[in-house]
C-alpha cells in the first residue's frame, strides 16, 4: 500500500518536469522576440529579427525539427536512431529523383519512402536481429551515403543540369502568400517602432511565401503530440520505450510497435531531407544534409524527448544557422551581449541557491563574453557556424541531470524475455 502511494508521489513529482505546453512556446517566442528587439535597439545590429531572418530561420528549422521528430518516435519506442543522418540523405535523393520525374508532391512522397527504407533496415537490424542500435545506425549512415552517391551517378548523369553529384533543378512545392496582409505588415515592419516592428516582421514571415511543407511539418508536430500522448496506440508505443517487458506482459506486441515507430522515424527524417532538396534549395546535391540528422538528434535530447522542447531546440539551431549565413559576424557579435546578460542572471540565481562554484563559472563566462563584445567588431564566420554545436554541448553539460530519456532507450529487447 505504501509502495503504491510512494509510486504515486513519484509520478506526481515526475510529471510536470520537462513539459512545455503550446502556450509556453508562444510566450517563449514572444519573449525571445522581445529580447531580440531590445538587443537590436542597444547594439544596432538590425538583422537580428527582420522578416528575412525569421523566414530563413523557419526554412532552416524545419529539416532539423523533422529529423528530431523522427528521433522522437524512434526513441520513445526504445530504439536509439543515429541513422537519422543516413535516412535524411536517402530522403534528399528520393526528392531529387521522384521530384524531377513526377513533380514536387511525388518528390515529397519519394523522400518519405526512401527515408522509410532506411528505417526498415534499422528496424530489421535492431529489433529482429538484436544488433546494437548505434552500430546499426553507423552502418546505415555509411550505406545511405554510398547508396545515394551510387544511385545519383546512375540517375542524374546526362540529364540537363544534372550530374554525378547533383540532380537537375526541381520545381518547388506550392507556397502561400496573403498579399495585402503581407504588404501591410511590411509597412509596419518598416516603421521601426520598438517591438511592434519585430512582431510584424515575425507575422509577415508567416504570410509571405510560406511553403506548404513548413505548414505540414508544424502539423506533423501537433499530430505526433496527439498520437503519442493522447491515444492508446501512443501509450503502448511509449510503454515499449519505458519497459518492454511490462508492455509485453500486458499483451502489447513490442516488436510491431518498435517496427512502426522506426519506420515512421525514417519517413520523417526522409521528409526532412526532401525539404532540404525541394524547399531549402532547388535540387538534390551530394552532402546536402551536412550533419543535420545529428543536429536533429541533439535538438531532441535538448528538448528532453518532448515535441515542444524539440521544436524549441530546433528553432535555436535554425536561428544560429541562419545568422551564420546572413551578416553573421555582426549578428552573433550582438548576441554575445545577450549571452553575457543572461549568464549574469543565471549567476545571481545560482548564488542565491548557494551553488557558488557554478555561479562563479557563469560569472566568468559572462565577463568573457562581455569582454569579447567590447573588444571586437565581429565574430569570425567559423565560430558563428560552431555556435549551435557548442550550445548543445553546454546544454548537455549543465542540464543533463534534468533530462530524462525513456527508461529502456537503446536496450536490446528479445521477445519472450518478460518471463
Amino acid at each position: 500500500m505504501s509502495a503504491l502511494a510512494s509510486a504515486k508521489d513519484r509520478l506526481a513529482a515526475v510529471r510536470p518536469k520537462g513539459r512545455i505546453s503550446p502556450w509556453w512556446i508562444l510566450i517563449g517566442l514572444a519573449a525571445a522576440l522581445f529580447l531580440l528587439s531590445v538587443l537590436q535597439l542597444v547594439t544596432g545590429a538590425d538583422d537580428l529579427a527582420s522578416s528575412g531572418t525569421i523566414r530563413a530561420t523557419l526554412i532552416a528549422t524545419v529539416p532539423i525539427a523533422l529529423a528530431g521528430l523522427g528521433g522522437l518516435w524512434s526513441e520513445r519506442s526504445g530504439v536509439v536512431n543515429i541513422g537519422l543522418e543516413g535516412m535524411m540523405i536517402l530522403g534528399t535523393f528520393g526528392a531529387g529523383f521522384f521530384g524531377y520525374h513526377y513533380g514536387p508532391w511525388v518528390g515529397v512522397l519519394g523522400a518519405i519512402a526512401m527515408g522509410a527504407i532506411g528505417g526498415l533496415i534499422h528496424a530489421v537490424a535492431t529489433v529482429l536481429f538484436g544488433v546494437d542500435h548505434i552500430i546499426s545506425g553507423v552502418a546505415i549512415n555509411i550505406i545511405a551515403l554510398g547508396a545515394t552517391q551510387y544511385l545519383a551517378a546512375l540517375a542524374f548523369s546526362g540529364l540537363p543540369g544534372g550530374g554525378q553529384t547533383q540532380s537537375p533543378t526541381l520545381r518547388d512545392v506550392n507556397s502561400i502568400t496573403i498579399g495585402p496582409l503581407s504588404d501591410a505588415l511590411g509597412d509596419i515592419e518598416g516603421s521601426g517602432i520598438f517591438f511592434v516592428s519585430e512582431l510584424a516582421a515575425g507575422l509577415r514571415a508567416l504570410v509571405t511565401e510560406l511553403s506548404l511543407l513548413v505548414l505540414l511539418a508544424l502539423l506533423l508536430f501537433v499530430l505526433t503530440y496527439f498520437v503519442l500522448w493522447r491515444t492508446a496506440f501512443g501509450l503502448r508505443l511509449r510503454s515499449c520505450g519505458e519497459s518492454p517487458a511490462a508492455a509485453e506482459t500486458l499483451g502489447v506486441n513490442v516488436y510491431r510497435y518498435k517496427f512502426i515507430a522506426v519506420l515512421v522515424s525514417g519517413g520523417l527524417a526522409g521528409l526532412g531531407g526532401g525539404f532540404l532538396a525541394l524547399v531549402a534549395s532547388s535540387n538534390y546535391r551530394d552532402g546536402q544534409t551536412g550533419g543535420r540528422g545529428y543536429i536533429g538528434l541533439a535538438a531532441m535530447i535538448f528538448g528532453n524527448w518532448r515535441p515542444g522542447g524539440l521544436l524549441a531546440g530546433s528553432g535555436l539551431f535554425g536561428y544560429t544557422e541562419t545568422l551564420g549565413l546572413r551578416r553573421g559576424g555582426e549578428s552573433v557579435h550582438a548576441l554575445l551581449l545577450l549571452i553575457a546578460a543572461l549568464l549574469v542572471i543565471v549567476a545571481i540565481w545560482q548564488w542565491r541557491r548557494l551553488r557558488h562554484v557554478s555561479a562563479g563559472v557563469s560569472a566568468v563566462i559572462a565577463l568573457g563574453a562581455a569582454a569579447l563584445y567590447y573588444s571586437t567588431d565581429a565574430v569570425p564566420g567559423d565560430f558563428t557556424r560552431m555556435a549551435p554545436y557548442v550550445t548543445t554541448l553546454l546544454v548537455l553539460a549543465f542540464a543533463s541531470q534534468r533530462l530524462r530519456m525513456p527508461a529502456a532507450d537503446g536496450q536490446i529487447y528479445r521477445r519472450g524475455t518478460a518471463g
Partner: protein
Amino acid sequence: MTPRMTRIALGIAAPVLALVAAFLITSLVLLIAGDPVGEVWSTILSVPATRNIANIINSATVLYISGLAVAVGFRMNLFNIGVDGQYRIAAFAAAFVAGEAWLPGYLNTLLAVVAAILVGAAWAGIAGVLRARRGVSEVISTIMLNAISTYLVAYLLRQAAVQEQGSNIIATREIPEGSRIPGFSLSDQAGTTVYGFVFIAILLGIGYWVMLNRTRFGFDLRATGRSEPAAIASGIDTKRMIIYTMLISGGIAGLVGLPILFGAAYSYGSTFQSGLGFAGIAIALLGRNHPIGIALGALLFAFLDEQSNPLQILVDVAPDIVKITQGIIVLTVVIAYEVVRRYGLRIEQRQVAQALERPAGEKSEVSA
C-alpha cells in the same frame, strides 16, 4: 569435432558468412540498377598491381590506427564516434608544429607526434570528462565535438596557413625534409612507396594487445566493459576508467592522420583526407576489437577502396558501390556473429546433454 575445433570453426564461419551475405546483397543492388555484375566483381577481385598493393598497405595503415582508436573504447563499452574530429585537429596540430620546425631533424618529428597525441587525447578527454562527471552520452558529445573541430580547424588553418602561389588551397608550412618519415619501395617503379609509419602502426597494435591483456589497467578496462557493477564491486574507479580510456582512444586517434602527413602530404591543407574516423568504427567492429582482426579488416576495406577506383573508367559504374558493400559488411558481421553465437550455444547445450545422458544410462530431464 572437439569443442575447441568447433569454436575455431564457428569463429571463422561468422566473418565468412558476413562477407558472402554482403557480396550477395551488393550483387543484388547492381542487378536491380542494371549494372554489369560480373564485370564489377572481376574488376574488384582482380590481382592488384604492385603500385596498387603499395596504396592498399598505405591506406590500411591509416585505417588500422583508426580502428585501434575506436576499439579501445569499444572494449569498455565506450562509443568514440569522435575519432574523426580528433584525428583532424591532431593532424593539424602536428603539421603546424612540424612545419614551424623549432627543433632539428627527428626531434622535430617526435615533438609533432607528441603534440598530435596530446591534442587528440585532450579533444577526446572533453567527452570523457563530460561522460564521467556530468553523465553526458559520449556518442552525442563526440558528434558535437566532430563538428566543432571542423570549424575550429578551418579557423586555425586560416590563421596559421601560408597561401600557395597561384592557387586558393591553403595549407600549413611544409614539413622540412629532415623531419619526414621515409618510406620504402616495393619495386623499382615509381609510386610504389610504402609509408615508414606502417611499422609504428604494427608496434601500436602489439602495444594495444599487451596493454589490454597483460596489464592491470587492461584488466580493469575489460572488466568495466563486461560488467560495470561487478567492476565497481571489485574496487575499480569506473569514472576514472572512462576518462583514461577516452584519453587513450583520443591519443591513438591523434596518430591516424600522421602517416599521410609525414609520408605523403607534408602539410595540412583544406583538402586533407577526412572521414577516416567513421571507417575506423566499421573496421573495429569487423575485427572484433582484436589487433589481428582489425588489421585484416583494414586491409579488406583498403582493398575494396583501391580496387574500385578504376570501375568508373572500365565498366562505367560509380565506385561508390563499394561503400554500400562496406556498410553492409558492418551490419552482416554483427548479425553473423550473433547468429553463430546462438548456434554455438545450441551445440554446446546438446553436447552437455549428451554427456550427461551417457554415463547415467537413463533419460535425462534436460535435453534442450
